[in-house]
């Protein structure tokens, strides 16, 4: 087990290197540098001085190696948008906002998703099953910002119940969380439904019923427990996505979180910020997948971890 985890961590390091390399070169291949985009058109001499200051005048390979060297010392540089801060402090002040949206989103999505999926499976082919499947299909594909726009139109503009956006008290949480949780909720409901339907046909469920156990007992202690496995493998990896926030949700609702900053960083070519957020997302992603695989063996002792991840 320890050997397996070590191997996975080493492979994660290579993945991170590849991610940073692609991000770095793609970023520099995009025309327009950080000091000649939009309104910040600087005099040529100043621009050259800025480029020199941030080491952007050096060959790109040198820049990359230097960047990785700094990252290894936990120095992620200075964001071009706010030269008085560091990338680490900017992420440190913005990420909590995103997490504050993310945690309720996860709670809402996973609780309601499991519930709806469970109900749909137990009442298969009833109207509630069709409703859950249809709404789930829509929720999975209709992007959160479209839902956000409609929520604003309905609840803020027409009914004047909630503020259209911004950040402050609890009222600012409701619409973003609702819009943002629909897609993961649909995913959770879909997978819960399928895995429960599968378990409902298993032999041990028939045995439990044959023994004369009540339906409630069968559902709770036999079915619910065993349908947890796909839950862990498919649904856990969604969590880092939610925690790193959505560009769309944060700009529709004007939330000063990481996602919104990521969008402006991309548009204004804020290289250090882009790289740091990309790496953050990749690290979270890698660790969650590792955790998922470990949990997988704990939940189903028949599965042994050997070598690299074989399950697809």
């Amino acid at each position, binding site marked *: 087990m320890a050997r397996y985890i070590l191997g996975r961590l080493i492979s994660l390091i290579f993945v991170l290197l590849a991610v940073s390399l692609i*991000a770095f070169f*793609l970023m520099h291949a995009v025309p327009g540098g950080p000091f000649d985009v939009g309104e910040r058109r600087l005099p040529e001499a100043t621009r050259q001085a800025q480029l020199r200051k941030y080491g952007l005048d050096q060959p790109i390979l040198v820049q990359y190696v230097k960047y990785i060297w700094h990252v290894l010392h936990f120095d992620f540089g200075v964001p071009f948008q706010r030269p008085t801060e560091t990338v680490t402090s900017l992420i440190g002040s913005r990420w909590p906002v995103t997490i504050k949206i993310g945690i309720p989103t996860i709670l809402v999505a996973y609780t309601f998703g499991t519930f709806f999926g469970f109900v749909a499976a137990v009442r298969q082919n009833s109207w509630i099953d069709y409703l859950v499947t249809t709404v789930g299909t*829509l929720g999975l594909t209709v992007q959160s910002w479209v839902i956000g726009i409609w929520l604003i139109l309905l609840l803020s503009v027409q009914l004047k119940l909630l503020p259209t956006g911004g950040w402050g008290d609890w009222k600012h949480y409701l619409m973003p969380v609702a819009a943002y949780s629909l897609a993961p909720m649909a995913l959770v409901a879909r997978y819960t439904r399928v895995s429960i339907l599968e378990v409902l046909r298993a032999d041990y469920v028939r045995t439990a019923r044959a023994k004369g156990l009540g339906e409630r007992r069968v559902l709770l202690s036999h079915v619910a427990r065993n349908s947890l496995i796909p839950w862990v493998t498919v649904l856990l990896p969604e969590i880092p996505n939610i925690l790193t926030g959505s560009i769309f949700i944060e700009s*529709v609702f004007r939330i000063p979180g990481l996602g919104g900053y990521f969008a402006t960083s991309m*548009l204004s070519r804020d290289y250090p910020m882009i790289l740091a957020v990309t790496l953050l997302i*990749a690290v979270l992603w890698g660790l969650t997948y590792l955790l998922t695989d470990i949990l997988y063996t704990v939940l189903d002792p028949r599965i042994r971890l050997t070598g690299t991840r074989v399950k697809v």
Partner: protein
Amino acid sequence: METAAAATTREFSLDRPTRSRTNFEFAMRRFARQKLALAGLLIVLILVLAAVFAPIVAPTGYADADLMSANKFPSWDYPFGTDPIGHNYLSRTIFGIRTSFLVGFLAVGVACLVGVPLGLAAGLRGGFTDTVVLFAVQVMTAFPGILFAMFLLSVVTSGVLKALFGNQVLNVAIVIGVTSWVGLCRLTRAQIISLREREYVTAARSLGATDFQIAVRHLLPNAVPPLIIAVTLLMPIAIFAEAGLSFLGLGINEPTPSLGKMIADSRSSIQLYWHLGVFPTLAIALAVLGFAFVGDGLRDALDPRQN
């Protein structure tokens, strides 16, 4: 929904003269028996017809504007109203469907062209090839998709490559395709791994078939059903990916309309003119539901064991 066993019994009931049917015929019959799937197919067909014949169906061209009648609410003259420039919004929506479907189909095609061969190679060859493909898959999954798409799109639409990629609709489709091949690749690989130890593959190999022949003649046809399903479900995702790029201001250029761009543009004026948001959203939701129903129906029809 009928189970495979029930369907088979009915097919072979005694009061009918027996006639051999191909698997394809069975699948079509199973598909036709599902009302939801048929409804989905109908929706998709109507939208595809509207898209293909947009110049005939639409009352005006997508760029025809009449500033005097800008920002009109839906009426008999303008069933979907008009937008701030005075475009007939019904025409914009129909041409928007055309663009969005074009992007969707092209993007899915590109995703197949990248993902399926990679998955085939990885599954069949194993070893080093598999390691390399899996590594690429991991990197792509870890990379924030929207960042990849944004930068790729900026690179493709400017500089040296500009001459090569002149058409923005094509650019957007290619970029979305290149960003979303991972799922298809993993699916193909999993299919091939589960199929490659079958007797008929061993038989073909012992007769001297090459890897390529085995992959194309024996493995791929058997891996097709789940791939068709995946492709159907990828369509709405690709359509919405274009919408996401439009939201960030990177989508298709004016005056070509796309459903995603129309929704994104309606953001600023939706508080006053609700119709600007309603119709493209409805069209996109219909397309999504249509494709999803067809996909679910195909899943039941082509792969009866799965459900």
